[in-house]
């Protein structure tokens, strides 16, 4: 028990909700949305480790997502690779790419990671669109095999729902443990003051690069699962605007809050469908809402809510 009880309780409640939800939600369309929420949550949890603990944002996580999806999709679909090991291979390669981008840019003061990841995302997306004899180009790549475990095939939305959320919850637990560990404290020290952390013996550059790579691994895993789940991928899913959406989920949920990540994904994933009701005003409303929330609640909705629920007390003790 001890100081871990709030998040263990939260995790218990969340697991129960995830397990029970299919009893209430039976329409395959809604199950599909729940699956996408799970995948987005996974990416956002990883991305929020980066944002929350290095103070840097990446506008390239859609590209890492697409690397996972396209590596898994192409290697299993066109070249007959076995799916599960390919997921690991895709993660390894994506992690390597993230490492190569992160090491030089994260050493710099200021927001150079934004620029580098933005450029990287644009490059990856254009290459996927243009290299059409391999990737299928703008019309997409179909026929990706589904995953099997022993003789059990994940061949329905419901089965995928449980598989995806298993990984999402695993990712959540990993993130919560990481935040609570020695590594998490080092990361928070870096966020507070890189110089102070360095004088205490924390290798700032290495930690920053490591957390960036870790966040890319989350995205890559989600991408592989997405490809096997839908069996069809197209470049539109992974453009820069999706990267923007992912960071929006982080910010709206609450920067540096693992639970906030989940909340950001749950609120923002179905939002386009909800706003589709407004038809051509959709973008205007989306942009307007984003601006208003950022102006008035920059700390994110999760923190806003949890402060609202908590009994009032003086904030003086908080550093």
């Amino acid at each position, binding site marked *: 028990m001890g100081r871990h009880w709030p998040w263990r309780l939260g995790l218990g409640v969340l697991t129960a909700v995830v397990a029970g939800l299919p009893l209430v939600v039976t329409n395959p369309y809604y199950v599909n949305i729940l699956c996408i929420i799970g995948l987005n949550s996974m990416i956002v949890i990883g991305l929020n480790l980066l*944002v929350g603990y290095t*103070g840097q*944002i990446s506008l390239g996580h859609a590209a890492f997502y697409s690397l996972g999806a396209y590596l898994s999709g192409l290697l299993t679909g066109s070249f007959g690779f076995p799916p599960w090991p390919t997921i690991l291979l895709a993660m390894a390669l994506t992690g390597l790419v993230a490492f190569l*981008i992160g090491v*030089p*840019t994260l*050493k*710099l*003061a*200021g*927001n*150079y990671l*934004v*620029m*580098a990841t*933005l*450029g*990287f995302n*644009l*490059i990856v997306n*254009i*290459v996927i669109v*243009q290299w059409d004899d391999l990737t299928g180009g703008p019309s997409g790549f179909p026929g990706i095999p589904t995953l099997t475990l022993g003789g059990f095939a994940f061949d329905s939305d419901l089965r995928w729902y449980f598989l995806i959320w298993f990984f999402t919850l695993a990712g959540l637990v990993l993130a919560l443990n990481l935040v609570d560990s020695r590594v998490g404290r080092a990361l928070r020290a870096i966020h507070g003051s*890189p*110089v102070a952390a*360095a004088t205490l013996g924390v290798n*700032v*550059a290495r930690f920053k690069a490591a957390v960036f790579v870790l966040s890319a691994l989350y995205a890559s895993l989600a991408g592989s699962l997405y490809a096997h789940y839908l069996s069809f991928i197209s470049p539109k899913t992974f453009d820069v605007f999706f990267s*923007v959406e992912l*960071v*929006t989920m982080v*910010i709206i949920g609450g*920067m540096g809050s693992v639970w906030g990540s989940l909340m950001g994904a749950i609120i923002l994933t179905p939002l386009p469908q909800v706003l589709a009701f407004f038809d*051509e*005003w*959709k*973008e*205007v*409303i*989306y*942009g*307007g*809402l*984003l*601006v208003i929330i*950022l*102006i*008035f*609640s*920059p*700390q994110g909705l999760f923190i806003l809510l949890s402060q609202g629920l908590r009994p009032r007390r003086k904030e003086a003790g908080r550093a």
Partner: protein
Amino acid sequence: MTIQFLFTGLTTGAIYALIAIGFCVVHNATGIVNFAQVDFVTLGGMLLYTFLHQAGLPLWLDFPLAVTGVAVIGGVLERLTLRPARSNQVLILIFITIGASIFLRGGMEHVWGRSSLAVRPISGGGPLEILGAAVMPQSLWVMALTGLCVAALTWYFRRTRPGKAMRAVADNPKAASLVGIDVAWMKTLAFAISGGVGALAGMLIVPITTLAYDVGVMIGLKGFAAAVLGGYGNFLGAILGGLTLGVVESLGAGLISSTYKDVIAFVILLLVLFLRPSGLLGTGAGERV
């Protein structure tokens, strides 16, 4: 052939340079990247289309009207979104401009529709022959008006009181406010200037490309790459970065592969960040921690 690519490159390069200047002006006054800059470009083209083809106003009137219009929109944008922001975190402020960008793009889609529009060039007539290359008159207009705009901005920042005040804010906002400069107003003014400059870029480029509600995104992001290439925040660097990017892109597309034309700018962006993050002319911007 190479001369031909050079002219094409200098034309788009001039546009990138203008957009890069817009990014720099805002960065110097506020310290943030204003992603709505890309929509200022589109908005300029859209207003030109409306004034010229829908309202039938003469060209000499359209240009100042559209520049003023987008400048006002830029200033209002800053006043309504960034000034009331309750956070001074750069990340949040940048994302406010991204939200504003989505909002503006959605609005333009609503007002002008999704289909492509065509805008006629400033002067008609066939291509002129210069040094064996065929140059469209619009290219000359682009270069001439960009040059004029740069000269006017240089005069503004070097010789006028508000221009000097803006440079003071860029240098040290606290000291600037101590000597009585209205820093908040300077930020609004910076957004207005970047709006006007972006609008000019848009008006000059849309007769060459076509006009649609999202035309500014790709051009604008390349302008951003140009600003980084030149040394983010550096005025002269922005111009040099824009022209370099335009020429390299045009030569690369012509001599190597036109399929990957759009990749070139961003590969250069990554290379600059990895090898020389302070850019061509930047000084301390890329400091290591």
